[in-house]
Each structure stands twice: as structure tokens, then as C-alpha cells.
């Protein structure tokens, strides 16, 4: 009986059930830029997955004597300073960039949602304390965070994922907390509370699903910057431990000095980074627009 009443009240307000998502998908399909973004992403995921099949050369081994050669039939993207095939390196680099980007965002989401949910759900002193800590983390430039984690744990892919992920956590935490705090006063939550639904149930069943959508949008956009951030860390020399492994950021920054003598070495990894970042951005924007319940289209 009580459940029925709850159900009635809940249904008359936005909910994270099938209705919203089906609408969103429909709107997304009509959004040109978002589709373009999706295609860009798909190309790179394909490239990353099929790298061992498509690449003709080992990305870590090259002939020094044939270094810094321009694009040719044998090497469509040229060779780098050490004579390695650039095309193979871009393909294998996609694996790293996308993997590390995705895992980093997931790490950030994991930490962020836990902290944000506790802060937003509990409120009061717990919230204040957690937000103070987040403030300090936000005031520390992410670079120190990244250097710190790598200095502490050493170079390597896992450390990079942790470093980037943890630097995103405060942002996700704040976002979720903000949404939750706003939702606390929403009609359907007040109603659920007034009929005696236990706190954690309200949180999990009613508040979180609604609060998650902005997080999802932000996460997609974060993927875009994660790719750039990972590249930036590669720039820092905090890339994967072994420099022979192809990683876009390191490739880009190693070649920065070849701007005039071998611009193709900057162009191809640079284009890869930009296109994948643009792809995720477009998709994220599209998601944000299509998930916006206020749009009547």
C-alpha cells in the first residue's frame, strides 16, 4: 500500500528509469556533431583493439640508420628518430591513451562518488569536513599531486592512472554532492522521507539515479581531458616506465623539437590526441543536451 503511493508520487517527476534514457537516445541519434564524435571515438577504439593486426612493424624496435624519414609507402606516417614506424606507434599508442584515460576517469568516479555521496547524503559536519579536504586537494595544483604519486610509487602505467584519477575525484565529489544537496529538497524526496522511507534507501533508489546524469556527462568530458592529461604527464617524463612503449603524449613531446625538421612526427600523434579529445567532447556535449529533461524536443 505504502509502496504504491510512493510509486505514484515518484512517477510524476523526472526519474532515472527507462523513459529518460530512451528519449535521450532518440535525441542523440539526431545530433550531428555527437554522431561525428562517436565516429571519431569508434575509429580510435578500433585502431587500439586491432593494432596487432593492422600494424606492420614492432612499435618498439627500429633501425637507427633509417631514422627521421618522412611519410612514404613503406611508412605512411614516417619513422621517428630511432627508426621506428610512426603509424604502428600511433596505433599502439591508442591502446595506452584510451586505456589509461578510461581507467583514470573510472578511478576518479569511484573515489569521487563515494566521497560525494557521503558528503551529500550525510550533510552537516561530515559534509563540511569532506569539503574542506576537497578544497585543499583542489588548491594543490594537480601537477604536484601527479608528481607526488609517481615519485612515491615510481613510474608506470598504474601510477599514471591513479594520479590522473585522483586529481579528478574532487571534481566529481563536488558535482555529486551539489546534485544531492539540491535533490534533498526536491518534492519527491521530501515525500519519500515523509512517508518514512529509510535514508539510505532514499539515497540509493531515488536521489542517486537522478544525480548521476550530470556525472555521466562530466565523465565523458573528463575522458577528453584525461587523454590530454595523460599526454601531459608523458610530457613530464612521467609516462609509462619504458620509453620504448609508444604513448601519444611522450611521442608528441619528444618530437616537439623537430617542429621544423620533422613536423610529421608532431602532426600525427598531435592529430590523434586532438581528434579523440574532440570526439569525446562532442559526445559529451551531445549527451548533456539529450539528457537535459527540460528540453521538450
Amino acid at each position, binding site marked *: 500500500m505504502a509502496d504504491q503511493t510512493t510509486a505514484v508520487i515518484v512517477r510524476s517527476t523526472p526519474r532515472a528509469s527507462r523513459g529518460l534514457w530512451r528519449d535521450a537516445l532518440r535525441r542523440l541519434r539526431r545530433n550531428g556533431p555527437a554522431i561525428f564524435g562517436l565516429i571519431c571515438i569508434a575509429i580510435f577504439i578500433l585502431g587500439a583493439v586491432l593494432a596487432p593486426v593492422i600494424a606492420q612493424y614492432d612499435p618498439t624496435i627500429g633501425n637507427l640508420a633509417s631514422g627521421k624519414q618522412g611519410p612514404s609507402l613503406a611508412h605512411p606516417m614516417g619513422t621517428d628518430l630511432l627508426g621506428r614506424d610512426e603509424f604502428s606507434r600511433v596505433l599502439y599508442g591508442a591502446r595506452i591513451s584510451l586505456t589509461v584515460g578510461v581507467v583514470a576517469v573510472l578511478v576518479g568516479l569511484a573515489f569521487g562518488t563515494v566521497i560525494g555521496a557521503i558528503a551529500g547524503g550525510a550533510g552537516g559536519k561530515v559534509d563540511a569536513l569532506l569539503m574542506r579536504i576537497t578544497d*585543499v586537494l583542489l588548491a594543490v595544483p594537480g601537477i604536484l599531486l601527479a608528481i607526488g604519486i609517481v615519485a612515491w610509487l615510481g613510474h608506470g602505467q598504474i601510477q599514471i592512472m591513479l594520479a590522473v584519477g585522483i586529481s579528478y575525484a574532487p571534481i566529481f565529489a563536488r558535482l555529486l554532492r551539489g546534485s544531492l544537496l539540491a535533490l534533498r529538497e526536491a518534492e519527491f524526496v521530501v515525500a519519500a522521507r515523509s512517508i518514512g522511507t529509510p535514508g539510505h534507501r532514499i539515497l540509493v533508489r531515488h536521489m542517486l539515479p537522478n544525480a548521476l546524469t550530470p556525472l555521466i556527462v562530466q565523465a565523458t568530458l573528463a575522458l*577528453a581531458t584525461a587523454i590530454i592529461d595523460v599526454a601531459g604527464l608523458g610530457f613530464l617524463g612521467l609516462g609509462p616506465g619504458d620509453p620504448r612503449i609508444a604513448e601519444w603524449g611522450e611521442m608528441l613531446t619528444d618530437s616537439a623539437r623537430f617542429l621544423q625538421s620533422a613536423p610529421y612526427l608532431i602532426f600525427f600523434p598531435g592529430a590523434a590526441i*586532438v581528434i579523440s579529445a574532440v570526439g569525446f*567532447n562532442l559526445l559529451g556535449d551531445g549527451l548533456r543536451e539529450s539528457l537535459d529533461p527540460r528540453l521538450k524536443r
Partner: protein
Amino acid sequence: MLRYILRRVLGAIPVLFGLSVALFLFLRLLPGDPAEAILGQHATPELIKQIRETLGLDQPLYVQYLDYLGRLLHGDFGASIIDGRPVADSFLVRFPATIELTIGALIFAVGLGIPLGRLAARHPNGWIDGMVTVLSLFGISIPIFVLGYTLVFVFAVQLHWLPALGQIDPRLGVTPVTHFAIIDALLTGRVPAIVDSFAHLILPSIALGSIPLAIVTRITRASVIEVSNEDYVRTARAKGLTERRVNDRHIMRNAWLPVTTVIGLQVGGLLAGAVLTETVFTWNGVGSWVVTAIQNHDYIVVQSLILIFATIFLTVNLLVDIGYAFLNPRIRYG
């Protein structure tokens, strides 16, 4: 309002304190030593030990920290470990360059971003909008140093239209007084020097401002679109007001709010971007200074600089929030 400000300022103190402790510990725990930086290839275990003694680095950590804190509270920001120069003096020499860069970048970003955003919002999802969106995405995604190098290559090396480095041409003999190149040039009253100082600001402003430009454009566009769909705008239109009146009075005034918030928040990002820009364009600002200091393990300089940055960042945040409350009558803080 006053209580709110007071609360924020008081709240900032523990943040800064915590930051200083965290920074201190972190820097000391990193491998490497200013002694190594001083000696370079001449480092031997004996000499390193000797220098560490002179610098007081062999004291227990808490002693070193209290020492630093004590001096800080007296307004003494310490001196560089490497060349002994007081941090405050070097800061006054270098900060103006970063400010010039930042202002230049902001003028570029806002001056171009708001009109572009409004243009894109006029016909949402039209082809102008599409182009502006893609352009701004590229602005966000292209690394600053790549953009910087390319700008220099095209405009300085190939076309010889603009200079490649520095704040001003040393051959013009402008005496550094304030270390703001434009002001120093104005002080000489010589037109070629003044023109030269502006010319040196153009490319770096574009490079540094590329990301804020993209963001301001997108926020303006989003904000204008959102406000245009509001009921009161529709009412205004229904009332028969000219489009221009609707624009200026109703749309832009409300659209400004998120834009100003974002601009204020860009300051932190601009500082980070300034580091790259100063390196590419060889500007003697605090960005490149922090880089060198970190490389050299110049603890005192890094600690003091980052505390100064954090203070600036928090102050700007506070000003932005106050400004926001000012502009938006619906938000008032107790």
C-alpha cells in the same frame, strides 16, 4: 555580506596552512637535493653533505618547517637556496611579466569569445554554430606549446610580422623600471618602443588565451541559448520589444553571470598555461621561475611561490563569488 566575506577569509586560513605543510613535506620527500643542483656534475658525497649542513637541511623536518613558518609570519618569504636572492625581490621582478601575459590572454579570450559565443547562439546548431564549436574544441585540445611554436613559425620566422621572443627588443634600450614592458616603454615616451612592447604581447596572448577563448565562447553560447529560451524573454518578445532591446536588456544581462564566473575561474588555469607560454616565448615570468625552482629543488622559492599562487587563486574565487552575488539579486549570502 560582510559576515560571508569574513567567514570565507577565515576559512581560507586553515586551507593555506594545510597547503603549506603538505607542500613542505612533499618537496622534502622528493628524491634529490638543492646541493646537487648547486654542484652539478661536481657533486661528491662529501660536498653534498657539507652543503646540506650549511643550508640547514640536516635539521629535523619540524625544525626546518617552524623556521620557515616563523619567517613567513614576519613577512619574510625567504631567499633562494641556489643564488641567495630574496624571494620577494625576484617576485617583484618577474610577476609583472606574468600579469601582462594573463591580461593579454584574457583580453583576447573575452574580446573574441563573447562575440563569437553570441554569434553561435543566434542560430543554434546552424553551420556557424558548428564551425565555432569545432574551433573552440580545437582550442581546448591543442597543447599550448604546439600552438605557440606554430604561431612563432608562421608569424615570426616565415612572415617576419611579429617578434619571436621576449617582452621587448633589447636593442631598443628600454630601462627596466616596473618590469611591465608596456609601462616601461611608455615611460621612455618613444613610440617605436611602445609599439614594440605591444607587438611582443600579441602572439603569447593568443597562445595562452586559446583555451580560455574556447571556454568563454562555449559558455557564452550555452548561456545565451539557455536564457533565450526562458519565459521572460519570450514575454519580452511577445510584448513587441525590438530584438536589440531584448538582447541587451534581457538576454545579455542574465547571460553574463555564468560567463563572469567562468572567467574568474580561468585564472588558475591561466597560471598553469603561463608556465608553458613563458617557456615557449621566453618571457621572464613567475611561471618559468617556478619550473626552474622545482628543477633545482629550491624548496624555499617553490614553497613561497605556491603559497602566493594559492592565495591569489582563493582571493580571485572569493571576488568572483562576491561579484556573482552582486550581479544576481537572487543569491544572497548570510
